[in-house]
């Protein structure tokens, strides 16, 4: 390998990049802009659950319960109904997420020492949200139960006994906001797409236009060509990464708790891995259309769904868990969350970095191998 030749290729590629200003602006500004909008969109924090109440009893207790529900920010009362048949209409039409049914003999049953049930009918289409609604509903009912029980018991002169008082403590994220958990994933996804897709086109374009022949007949080796082609894009993506992290800090208060040099190093390794996907795609495809389709297929959805960005990898079936290794975003997200959110040092993430290096070398190696074979054939 000859450093001079690599530099020459890189320089040529830079010139290409700067000639197309529109493209350069898209590559530089869009990622930050997207982070700004999507950062606000990515969260699972369920508030303002729309409820409709069917109060069959209309007593002071039932009213008090409804009041206590709507006083919190978790539930928003959007209406009342007065018969069963309307429930289906409301849930089918997505007018409310849950219908609360308070039975006829609600307070009478309770004061005559019987068990009475408040029904919550929940729209389960979104299983995750439904799960959380279920949790809030049960908690609200339990606190009503505890309150009334204490009242009844104190009138009788005894005290209620709660054996275990559960005290949950949430480290790293005390108010359980999901946004900060998702921002690293969003960063990884934006970076991998920018890096992989832009590189994947660079080589194919030369193939389509025929300029690749000229390069082939020159004395440049395939490894030099591929590395030279990658470098400018890695640099560009690095600028991108810095801008995104600054935007994350300004807009979403994502403070980097760990060390900056470590963050820089891991970002660099990740970007090399991402661009190597692009290079491999570029080598195997003959037209920009094919290259682009493959590049989006292997980066966009997998980095969203298989990387652990949104969906926890531990919950996936075993085979899929193995397959998640196809996206370098998985490792980078682990690293980012560790450095940015938990502020841990290299001891917790060295294995992830190693995977990334391995990943990049396998892909780059394959690309160089396939390319030199193709060249030899022609």
């Amino acid at each position, binding site marked *: 390998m000859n450093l001079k030749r690599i530099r020459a290729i890189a320089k040529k590629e830079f010139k290409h990049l700067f000639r*197309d200003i529109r*493209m350069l602006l*898209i590559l530089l500004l869009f990622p930050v802009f*997207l982070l700004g*909008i*999507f950062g*606000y969109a*990515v969260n*699972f924090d*369920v508030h303002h659950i*729309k409820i409709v109440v069917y109060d069959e009893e209309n007593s002071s207790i039932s009213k008090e319960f409804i009041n206590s529900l709507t006083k919190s920010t978790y539930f928003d009362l959007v209406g009342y109904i007065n018969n069963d048949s309307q429930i289906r209409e409301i849930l089918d039409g*997505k007018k409310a997420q849950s219908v609360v049914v308070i039975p006829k003999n609600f307070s009478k049953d309770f004061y005559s*020492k*019987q068990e009475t049930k*408040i*029904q*919550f009918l*929940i729209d389960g*289409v979104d*299983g*995750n949200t*439904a*799960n*959380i609604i279920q*949790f809030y509903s*049960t908690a609200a009912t339990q606190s009503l139960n505890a309150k*009334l029980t204490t009242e*009844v*018991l104190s009138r009788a002169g*005894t005290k209620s006994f*709660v*054996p*275990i*008082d559960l005290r*949950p*403590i949430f480290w790293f*994220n*005390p108010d*359980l906001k*999901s946004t*900060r958990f998702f921002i690293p994933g969003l960063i990884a996804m934006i970076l991998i797409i920018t890096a992989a*897709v*832009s590189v994947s*086109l660079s080589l194919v374009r030369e193939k389509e236009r025929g300029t690749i022949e000229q390069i082939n007949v020159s004395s440049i080796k395939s490894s030099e060509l591929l590395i030279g082609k990658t470098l400018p894009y890695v640099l560009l993506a690095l600028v991108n990464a810095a801008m995104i992290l600054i935007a994350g800090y300004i807009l979403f208060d994502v403070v980097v708790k760990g060390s900056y040099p470590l963050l820089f190093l891991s970002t660099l390794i990740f970007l090399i891995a991402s661009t190597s996907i692009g290079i491999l795609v570029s080598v195997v495809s003959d*037209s*920009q259309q*094919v290259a*682009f389709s493959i590049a*989006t297929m292997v980066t966009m959805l997998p980095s*969203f*769904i*298989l990387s652990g960005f*949104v*969906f*926890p990898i531990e*919950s996936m*079936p075993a085979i*899929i868990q193995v397959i998640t290794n196809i996206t370098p975003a998985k490792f980078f997200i682990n690293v980012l969350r560790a450095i940015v*959110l*938990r502020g841990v040092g290299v001891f917790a993430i060295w294995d992830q970095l190693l995977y990334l290096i391995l990943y990049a070398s396998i892909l780059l190696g394959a690309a160089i191998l396939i390319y030199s074979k193709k060249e030899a054939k022609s």
Partner: protein
Amino acid sequence: MKTIIHIIRKEFLQFKRDPKMFGIILIAPIIQLIFLGYAATLDLNTVHTIFYDQDKTTTSRNFIEEFKSSGFFQIDHYADNYEDVQTYIEKGKSLVAIVIPKDFEKKINRRETTQLQAIFNGSDGNSASIAAGYIAAITTTFSKQIVKDFIDVSGRKISTVGKISAETRVWYNPELKTRNFMVPAIVGLLVSIVTLILTSLAVVKEKEIGTLEQLIVTPIRPLQLIIGKLVPFLILGFVSVTIVIVAMNIIFGIHVRGSVVFLFFSSFLYILSTLGLGLFVSTVSKTQQQAMMIAIFAVMMPMIYLSGFAFPVENMPTIIQYISYVIPLKYFITIIRGVILKGNGFVQHWFDATMLLTMGILILFFSALRFRKRLE
């Protein structure tokens, strides 16, 4: 009419000549559906837990046993000190550490309240809050059992007061599986990707190669050219909708509960807007590279994030919710989920369908206008 058919035939010939592309269009969506369908789940089946039992008595062991037998908790480790707890949580190995205090059994026997600590790795807020729900449920049951045992021993009647409990019933998706929510939406997403990319590239490619010039000098009228270019992609879009819905049925056992006719009708309305967007992208870009980047960043990414595909629109800030109103995929996903999971039809979704139709026509009209101007 004849000219249009000729252009359509030409487009299909081009497809046939590029077998790699053909494979990508037809097979890739199925492969993706399989992977993504299995992977896209937020269900928390295993909570990685460590216990720090300072008490080590029969009661504390019984308590731990409750967690083991629930099936949701996998105990990774029994810690001996807080440092141990800290390492496990910091490394992200375990989601929660439950600390049982020293006088756990003693206090319970004396009928005093004992405090139980649960330390979560809160960085994944969603998983942490679901796990907290599980732990609260187990603790409550355990507490109730203790109280009941006491009352039994002292020989009094079990219920001294009445009780109010919540009865939650989940409709449409009783097992609360995220997959049922995600897979139909993936259908919508894949269809958008296929139709949008193909359209935007097909036109720019002719521009770049220079064959567009040749088409312009022929007596073909711009409108004919647009229709002839778009119809093949409309057909391909329908083919991929069909393939993906059949695959969804076979692989995941998710049946379409509502009207299939309405589902296809709304797919048609939706594809109108993706084709329009594709055409629009092709008019604003000079090279295929530009077209691709614009297609990804300006159209596809907003579709993924703002359509309610994974992140519920209801959770977003109000301003972002307004932005989501201009995303056609939002309406299409609402329809797909309603028809497939709830068995809804036109009655519940007339508004979404109307929105799709309006947006489709508007987008298509304006991009066609722009495209025509460029040609002339």
